[in-house]
């Protein structure tokens, strides 16, 4: 590790909640997150018993399963100093919605609140908590950042990713006029209402293309897969990545929905 790496005196015990989409479709985001947390001097653990935060059940009205999945996450993660999540919506689920799942008299309420208070979305944790200094890296990237809805409006994530990106030499950020407008993902919304989702998504993509950026970055894999999947269907070569991959200098991994030339 280079000297410019920021370190905290006593390593923070961080539990990495990797999220289902990262686990299933894009492990590189997990490894990039791991690397960034270790650069920041954290002692990172990845509990094997983690699965899903329960968002699909929650947003479908299934409170019973949501509560049970929440309890599982609480049990697995409550003993860490901090819990870090490379997704605004999953972090928001834990820090914003878990406490509201339990009645005041329920002992799980206090445990949910305790976990909520130490759970962070990745860019918030890197920028605000550990104040990460990145090793000298350089890139030739003109990126535009898509502000995912839950991160933006539940967790106030706006400046943190931009501040982190500004530390990478050669990374230029151009803002889309519609950066804060929903991409039409919405979890199960995009498969339940594909026509409406498509319309929202195409407006999002037109805005992204208008920036002339050569890379779209964001902090939520759901939105990014939605955007990348549509770009691919439209025949566009615009690269889409999770911000962690750029911050961790791991852009040799194929972009989302891009062909894997190095594989096999």
């Amino acid at each position, binding site marked *: *590790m280079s000297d410019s790496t920021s370190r905290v005196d006593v390593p923070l015990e961080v539990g990495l909640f990797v999220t289902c989409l*990262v*686990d299933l*479709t894009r*492990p590189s*985001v*997990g*490894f*990039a997150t*791991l*690397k960034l947390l270790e650069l920041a001097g954290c002692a990172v653990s990845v509990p*094997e*018993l*983690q*699965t899903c935060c*329960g968002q*699909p059940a*929650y947003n*479908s*009205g*299934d*409170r019973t*399963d949501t509560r*049970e*999945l929440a309890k599982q996450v609480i049990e697995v993660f409550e003993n860490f100093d901090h819990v870090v999540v490379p997704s605004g919506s999953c972090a928001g689920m834990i820090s914003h919605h878990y406490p509201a799942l339990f009645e005041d008299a329920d002992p799980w309420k206090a445990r949910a609140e305790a976990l909520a208070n130490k759970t962070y979305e990745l860019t918030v944790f890197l920028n605000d908590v550990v104040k990460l200094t990145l*090793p000298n890296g350089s890139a030739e990237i003109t990126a535009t950042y898509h502000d995912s*809805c839950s991160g933006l*409006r539940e967790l106030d994530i706006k400046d943190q990713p931009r501040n982190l990106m500004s530390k990478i030499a050669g990374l230029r950020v151009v803002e889309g006029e519609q950066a*804060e407008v*929903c991409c*039409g*993902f919405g*979890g199960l*919304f*995009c*498969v*339940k*209402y*594909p*026509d*409406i*989702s498509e*319309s*929202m998504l195409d*407006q999002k993509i037109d805005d992204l293309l208008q920036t002339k950026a050569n890379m779209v970055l964001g902090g939520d894999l759901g939105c990014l*897969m*939605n955007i*990348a*999947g*549509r770009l*691919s269907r439209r025949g566009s070569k615009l690269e889409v990545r999770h911000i962690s991959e750029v911050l*961790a200098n*791991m852009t040799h*991994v194929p972009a989302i*929905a*891009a*062909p*894997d030339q190095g*594989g*096999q």
Partner: protein
Amino acid sequence: MQTKTATFKDNAKEALANETLQIELARLSQGFPIRRQQAADRMPEFEQLRDQARDIKNHVLANLDLYLEAYENKVTDLGGQVHWARDAAEAREHILKICKAADAKTVTKSKSMIGEEIAINDYLEDNGITPIETDLGEYIIQLRNEPPSHIIAPAIHVSKAQVEADFRRVHTDLPEDRNLEDPVSLLQEARSQLRDKFLNADVGLTGANMLVAETGSNVLVTNEGNADLTYALPRVHIVIASLEKIVPTLEDASTILRVLARSATGQDMSVYTTFCSGPKRLGDLDGPEQYHVVLLDNGRTDLLGSEFEEVLRCIRCSACMNHCPVYKAIGGHAYGWVYPGPIGAVLTPGLMGMEDAEDLPNASTLCGKCESVCPMRIPLPKLLRSWRTRAFENETSRPMGHRALQIWAWIAKRPRLYHKINGMIVALLGAVGRKKGVLRWLPLASGWTSKRDFPTPLGDTFIQQYHRGARGDASGQWLREDRP
């Protein structure tokens, strides 16, 4: 009006294919949100005012019986009369009775969502009374025999060319070669057509933006002044309003007025703001001889004290739909009833029941933009979720989707099984599509693949790789030795 909430998906499809509508919707979403932001930025205390407005309405809802009684007493003192209506049918009967007693032939009407909710125009027509809409947008859609598609801009779905064609079709007394190119000429023509109607109407029917308990007044907010001519010229003024429109004092009314127009159109104030208090008094030069208020419940008291109570704070400013990406995609008619956009998606199931309105609370990404601009701080995403919970718990929802979800949740509660299954899925998908990077088709996922490619999983799952010892190292290398 005909209810079409049950065919939401088809309505949406139709709207997405309607090019005129799409052009108008793009224009709408460019205008109102920008002007609202500018208005909010001009006012340093805007956010505090939103808190105050919310608190006023919360106080009213907690003491609604008290304020309704005080309001009725005040209206009676002023010489007016309050008519209570449990549902739309009772409200219509009250109105018809008043009209018949006044021997009314024509009724002028200013914009009222309650008028739409109780479908008063059709009812009056069926009973031989001619209702005439006097708000320009409402006038246009009345000519077209359409319901409004937006709360404050009811004809937002109609293009200027369509208005011109409608005017030429209906205003046959005017010269055919008249020039209607300019929007102002359309406005002038509507105005001249309406002038006689205002003067000859027997009854004026208005809504109410608020009802003030302290003074017994109804508040009318317009940009065209049509409500003033509607209530002041005829012999009888009927106000139709739902009972949550009450505010305690004039001071409270002015607090809410300060957020209303700013949230709606970005104006500091609407052009006309009128407080009507009772009939014409001795010595008044003009005003109606009779003043009636029809107070409608229509399911609202059932929402009081429920998890949906907060929706009753709504002041119908339209900020939620002006900022909603779903509304922007499909417009107001797709929602299938009176109230479109996020507020409609929460209110409609509350007023009509969930059975035929189940798509409405589901057709949202819960992006939260609506809540961020609502002047009354109604937590719309939370309320949309609450409807989904109700539907799930009452099993009114499609059982197929629910069963799939429950199976998934059952697996997710068994981490070892979950990871084993995920590993198999990833291996399978990877074998099929890794080289290309995407899958163009996936079984049981046509909702996704009909519109987009599915990014192929990069390798084994993260948990599998991590617990096999793979790490991302500090030099920027991603260890690939475990890749197939």
